[in-house]
């Protein structure tokens, strides 16, 4: 048939054209299989976002800190027990009696990827750059103000950057002066913002610094290659073992291939065909994979809670707050709605985060469950509260996020509250993140579903924000007792770790007794992890994972 021949020809032509045009392929496939013998030391992982910046002074998010952590090395690095271990530092710091003068000897065999030695000057340069207002860093002042001497003044243009409390005594000796004896400073030194920078290189590159992997220097276990946010493929990059790394003999992985995948189902599909070794799971997949060998949940020290704004007359009443905090079925919330291994939160500090300096007991274990679901008690508190207020019904606004899970969770909490507390009406408003932050700052909410991740390994990161003078205090909780306990912990008790820790324990009890906030849950993340991948460390702060000691088992 002439006609069908003709049509076939057209169709064939279109198809050839299509294939030819996408033709000249240079990118290699990532799913290289192993060919018997020892397994290839290659890890294939996914990230849900691209690296926004590799400039350690500018980094603020999990992905950036993840890859800074793999390719750079600071004075200390967290081990599998979240304890800082010497990295560029040659040993433990020498700390003056008052705790404000730190002297750290540096190892002399650490080098940058261009061959320059890593020196004390690199730290001085990097830290000055982070607090310099001209840099416009967000995390620099956030991490260093009130910690390093003069950081705040410098950031506010009231002092010169040279006055920052850090100096290079020699190439291998760093002297740090603190505003006050910060007890958690040791763990802070593992954080990305405190990484060193090679001054000559950064200055030479200027605006180009850290724009892509060619404009970076590394001193960590891996070297970044093919990372270019404005290049041919901005969403794939590779880490290769850094042979010049001072501890290279401990690094077993030869290569880590990273791709950005935002769609969870795509990630699971890629995992199931063996192309990647890790995939994050959303709630709908948990049921399917829970119990399999590949399924893992990682408890993060990230806490979610309801902020109860005491500017509202009803919420200013302690009994009303307690009633709200005790009405919510948190176990169902984590089991049914979140379904990712999250656990109910019963205090203001998450579990497995810090332990008692003497006994080693976990903070949560010592203080126990301070606010749990108790609907009967909630009803009693509620009745008492209403009586004190002299009303029989209360209407409260509820500010929540606009993601699917957030909306589901907020609808559930509304139901729980209204069902348990007779006469309560909860009006849920779901807004995007930016809008929630803006309303939070202006205090435009009654109840707000909110969360916090830690910035250093110390209970203070969870508790200081609930003092009446904290810049983060928007819910108008104001307890003299609480303020005193926290203030003591951050001043006179700084050098007395046990007493200080006990202050935090007491403070949390006060906060929970007042129901200053209503804790909801501590977040976990559910993953599929290839069981043959061993030795990955999960960190409570900074980079989520450490691949330095990871390897692929037979």
């Amino acid at each position, binding site marked *: 048939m*002439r006609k069908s021949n003709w049509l076939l020809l*057209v*169709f064939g032509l*279109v198809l050839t*054209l*299509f*294939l030819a*045009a*996408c033709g000249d*392929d*240079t*990118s290699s496939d*990532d799913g290289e299989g192993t060919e018997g013998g020892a397994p290839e030391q290659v890890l294939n992982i996914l990230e849900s*976002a691209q690296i*926004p*910046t590799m*400039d350690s002074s500018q980094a*603020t*998010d999990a992905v950036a800190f993840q890859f800074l952590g793999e390719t750079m090395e600071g004075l200390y690095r967290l081990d599998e027990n979240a304890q800082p271990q010497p990295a560029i530092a040659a040993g433990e710091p020498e700390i003056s009696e008052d705790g404000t003068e730190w002297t750290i000897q540096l190892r002399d065999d650490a080098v940058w990827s261009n061959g320059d030695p890593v020196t004390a000057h690199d730290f001085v340069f990097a830290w000055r750059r982070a607090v310099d*207002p*001209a840099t*416009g860093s*967000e*995390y620099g*002042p*956030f991490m260093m*103000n009130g910690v390093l001497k003069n950081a705040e003044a410098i*950031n*506010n243009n009231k002092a010169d950057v040279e006055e920052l409390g850090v100096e290079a005594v020699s190439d291998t000796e760093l002297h740090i002066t603190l505003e006050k004896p910060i007890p958690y400073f040791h763990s802070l030194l593992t954080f990305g913002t405190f990484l060193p920078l090679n001054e000559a290189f950064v200055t030479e590159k200027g*605006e180009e610094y*850290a*724009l892509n992997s060619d404009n970076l220097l590394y001193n960590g276990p891996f070297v970044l290659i093919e990372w*270019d*946010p*404005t*290049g*041919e*493929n*901005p*969403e*794939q990059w590779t880490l290769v073992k850094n042979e010049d790394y001072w501890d290279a003999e401990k690094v077993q992985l030869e290569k880590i291939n990273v*791709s*950005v*995948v*935002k*769609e969870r*189902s*795509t990630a699971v*599909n890629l995992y*199931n*065909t063996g*192309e990647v070794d890790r995939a994050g799971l959303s709630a709908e997949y948990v049921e399917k994979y829970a119990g399999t060998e590949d399924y893992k949940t990682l408890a993060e020290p990230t806490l979610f809670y309801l902020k109860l704004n005491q500017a509202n007359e009803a919420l200013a009443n302690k009994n009303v707050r307690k009633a709200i905090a005790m009405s919510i079925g948190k176990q169902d919330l984590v089991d049914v709605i979140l379904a990712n291994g999250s656990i109910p939160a019963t205090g203001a500090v998450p579990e497995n985060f810090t332990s008692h300096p003497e006994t080693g007991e976990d903070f949560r274990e010592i203080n126990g469950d301070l606010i749990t679901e108790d609907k009967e008690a909630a009803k009693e508190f509620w009745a008492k509260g209403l009586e004190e207020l002299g009303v029989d019904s209360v209407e409260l606004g509820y500010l929540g996020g606009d993601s699917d899970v957030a909306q589901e969770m907020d609808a559930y909490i509304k139901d729980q509250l209204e069902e348990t507390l007779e006469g309560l009406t909860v009006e849920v408003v779901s807004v*995007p993140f*930016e*809008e929630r*932050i*803006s*309303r939070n700052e202006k205090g435009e909410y009654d109840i707000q579903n909110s969360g916090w991740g830690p*910035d250093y390994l110390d209970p203070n990161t969870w508790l200081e924000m609930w003092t009446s003078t904290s*810049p983060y205090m928007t819910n108008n909780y104001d307890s003299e007792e609480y303020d005193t306990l926290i203030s003591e912990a951050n001043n006179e008790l700084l050098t007395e770790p046990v007493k200080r820790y006990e202050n935090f324990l007491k403070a949390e009890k006060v906060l929970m007794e007042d129901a200053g906030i209503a804790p909801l849950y501590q977040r976990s993340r559910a993953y599929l992890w290839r069981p043959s991948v061993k030795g990955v460390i999960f960190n409570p702060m900074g980079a989520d994972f450490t691949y330095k000691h990871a390897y692929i088992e037979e």
Partner: protein
Amino acid sequence: MAKYILKRIGYMLITLFIIATFSFILMKMLPGSPLTAEEKVTEAQREIILEKYGLNDPIPVQYVRYLGNLAQGDLGVSFQMKNQSVTDILMSRAPVSAELGFWALIVGTSLGMLLGLIAAIRQNSWMDYGSNIISVIGISIPSFIFAGLMQFYIGVELELLPIAFWGTPQQAIMPVIALAIFPMAISARFLRTEMIEVLGSDYIVTAKAKGVSKFAIIFKHGLRNALIPLITVMGPMAVSLMTGTLVIEKIFSIPGIGEQFVNSVTTNDFSIIMGTTLFFAFLFIVIILIIDILYGIIDPRIRLAGGKD
């Protein structure tokens, strides 16, 4: 013709200017700042940073500065992707989206024309009904459903094609097909209707009477005339592909422009939002212009500039 095109380009610039102004005003009405660690940075620190980037200046000042830079072709730098030039980001991502959209359009309209043609020639046969059913399915089921199904059955179960990413021809097949289904369905429906109308018209009857071969009637006389209206729907179709790529790019992890756009909106990355909006607007206007010009070339009865040129 040249005069007409010049005039259109003039209008185009005015349109872009209006779009830039409106987007700018809308952007400034959004809450929040482009800071990345917003819930942690204190107000005092934020002021220091906003000051550094000139975001504390009065809005008219910022507006004039932005337009001034824009006139010089400078779209600024991204806030989220620290210091990366917006132009560079667009230039690295736009070609990927364009390639994906282009092939979806070509594959979609070719297949659609084929289906529509068969349906028109074999009107009321099982082929017609079959083609109709395919079209209805293609119009009513969103592309991401096809994408998800293909990814699972073809990628995971049969392991015939790669599940995601971009770079090889194999990787392009599933996303292109998923994206091509809508234009295919639309053009099939459209061509069938047009073709049936044309084939019933007087000059076709005359041609038949003169003994012109059936092949020549369909392709030489019929199809050419039936295609003209199709060109008008190609414009809106190309635009719907632009938005369609947002979802498809996400599912197949394709480093296109769509994902970047969505991200920048949720993070208030002002310069990227403006850059992408203007880029999309520019593209849209250019496509409309090209279609108008094509229209005149294919059908000489349509006079573009009026008068007698």
